[in-house]
């Protein structure tokens, strides 16, 4: 689930992607909040690597 940075609504990636079908920059992966239209980026998988790297052992990450 993605939390909109603007209005706080939570939505699934599929719902956000469906709002972007008319954009020619088709592969940008941005998702648009279905409530307010604000664009949010799904986090890249490589971010987890950094999260793990900087999270002390034994402590869970946000993911």
């Amino acid at each position, binding site marked *: *689930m993605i939390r909109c*940075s*603007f*209005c*706080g*609504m*939570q*939505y*699934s990636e599929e*719902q956000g992607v469906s*709002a*972007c079908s*008319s*954009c*020619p*920059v088709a*592969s*940008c*992966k*941005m998702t*648009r909040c*279905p*409530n*307010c*239209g*604000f*664009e949010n*980026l*799904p*986090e*890249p998988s*490589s*971010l987890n690597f*950094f*999260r793990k790297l900087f999270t002390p052992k034994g402590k869970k990450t*946000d993911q």
Partner: protein
Amino acid sequence: MKISSMGIEQEYKQKQCKGASASCHGVGSPDVTSERWIALTGQPNVGKSLLFNRLTGSRVAVSNYPGTTVAVEKGQFTLARDKYDIWDLPGMYSLLPITEEERVAKMALFRNRPSFVLHVVDARNLKRMLPLAMELSETGLKVILVVNMMDEAEKEGLEIDSEQLSRETGIPVVPTVAVTGRGLNGILKHVLNYRRSNHHRVIPFEESVERGISGIEELLDDGYPLCKRSLAQLLLQDDKDAFNMVAHSQPEANGTIRRIIDEASTRAGESLLYLMRLSIHHEADRISHETTTREENHKIQWSEKLSRLMTWPVTGVPLLLVVIYLVFYKFVGVFGAGTLVDFIEGQLFGQYINPGISGFVRDLTGVEAIRELIIGNYGLVTLGLTYAIAIILPVVGTFFFAFSIIEDTGYLPRLSFMIDRVFKKIGLSGRAVIPMVLGLGCDTMATVTTRTQETSRERVIATLLLALAIPCSAQLGVIFALLAPFPKALLIWAGVIIGNFLLVGYLASRIIPGHKPAFFMELPPLRLPKISNVLAKTYTRIVWYLKEVFPLFIIASLVIWLLQLTGVFPFILKNLEPLVNGMGLPDATSEVFFFGFFRRDYGAAGLYDMKEMLSAGQLTIAAVVLTLFVPCIAQLMVMFKERGAKTAVGIFLFVLALAFSMGWLLHYIFTTFNIMI
């Protein structure tokens, strides 16, 4: 209370359910296995699932809601020897669904009609959570309001009067802490002995709406899965599901209902949806205020005060100017586009990377065309790579970082709220802040966002203003960096751009026919930004830039190289020269405008590259024209797709003419009045 293999077994004696709604709920449904079933509802992240696990133990089954792909968790528990089914419904924000998940939650309530609804809210955000609780209460379902996360609320110095809250909402209220199980017994007691103190309306609306509700209520038959008043409210808010219900049960009433809605709308003189949401939120605000007390807590009071300052125009506008000054001017412009670019472009690329690659390519091949492709004036390395990495990346990188901080604080929705009044003068509403802010990132994608504007008039005006006067972050950062040594130039540039934005918007709102926009927005809490969030968002955006935008720079270099090779590029530049000369700019600046049509940031990088060649006055003119200049190719394509060919071509020609007219006008004023910058 003890936990058995069947879940939680309660030793309460079952009592006769009293005080329940007489007509508004059914018994069970074909989809559930027992006659008693409970729906768990609430917004996401309120502890709903934790409560579900507490009630069911580990006996959970996940299946899609019939006819949809939305998963619903189902479990069971035993209470006073009776088996209860319980469904953890998807998170929902209101009875007017936007997402499929919300629609499923609503359908489950109305089609399957639970015996009880455990509506979970976050005690810390009662004001934001109450509207849905009040709407649910009005449906006539047996709702129990579970005020969860009481421990967190208490830590923040909040005290909630549950009895008073129950009187105000008309439904039983149970304070809980799902993590520890506190309050669980209270919920089960209410399930066994449900009583509601008030089954009358709890949300008062203004007269025009009330008349509409009464008119529709009189038309509706019995037998709907929700109370007539609640259904009438949904119809007045133009809820498709409500209309479907009526179309199915009383198709003959549809026309009269539409007429009543039109009359109510005319009487109100405003969007009924807007008026009703406003009334619901005012009532939620009042109830929250009367049932919640807060201990003296300086930190929280400070954030509330700051929130008010941000939304009050007298203080909000200076605050906005401070944000622009610190974020765009000092951080993105002076630090990002100045210090960082000087180092990366001047030192790293200028002294090491470009000379190194140039030497390597010269040694590698003697074919001139290949050399030109890689290290020529418009080469992949000397132009594409240098522009993308050495000039634009530091600018957008600093912008992404600053923007992530702003985003994480909750300032943007407050900006929408504050700017709503000004935007209404130019035919827009606070909702248009979203595409305008997003335009600072990429105007192309912001143009797609204009479809979220309420009326087609708003959509056209927002598209026009995005194409005309909203520079992307790279453009803005480069312009700030170029004009930073000349404060007068910066003021002239800002004055011309803001003036054009307001004047064109005002005239467009007068010329383009349509309804006045209405805007309602729920403000999320103001908070201190979390560094982990900020870094994650910045990293995510930089990865996006490298993956999606960087290749476009390389493609643009390739295209320009091809045009150069075929002689088309010099031909285009030759034809642009009279236009730029007319604005007092040298021939070489025609390149900048041509680049700008490929990508706005590409043009900005081109202008940065020739800063030594231009005087302060010429820089000012070039910056103004480049900002107002026609949208890039991708944005133009979106304009065609979103607004149609006629509107897109109209906007393109208007913006082109206005941008060059402004350049010529500035040049005329500078030379006629001998203005030196």
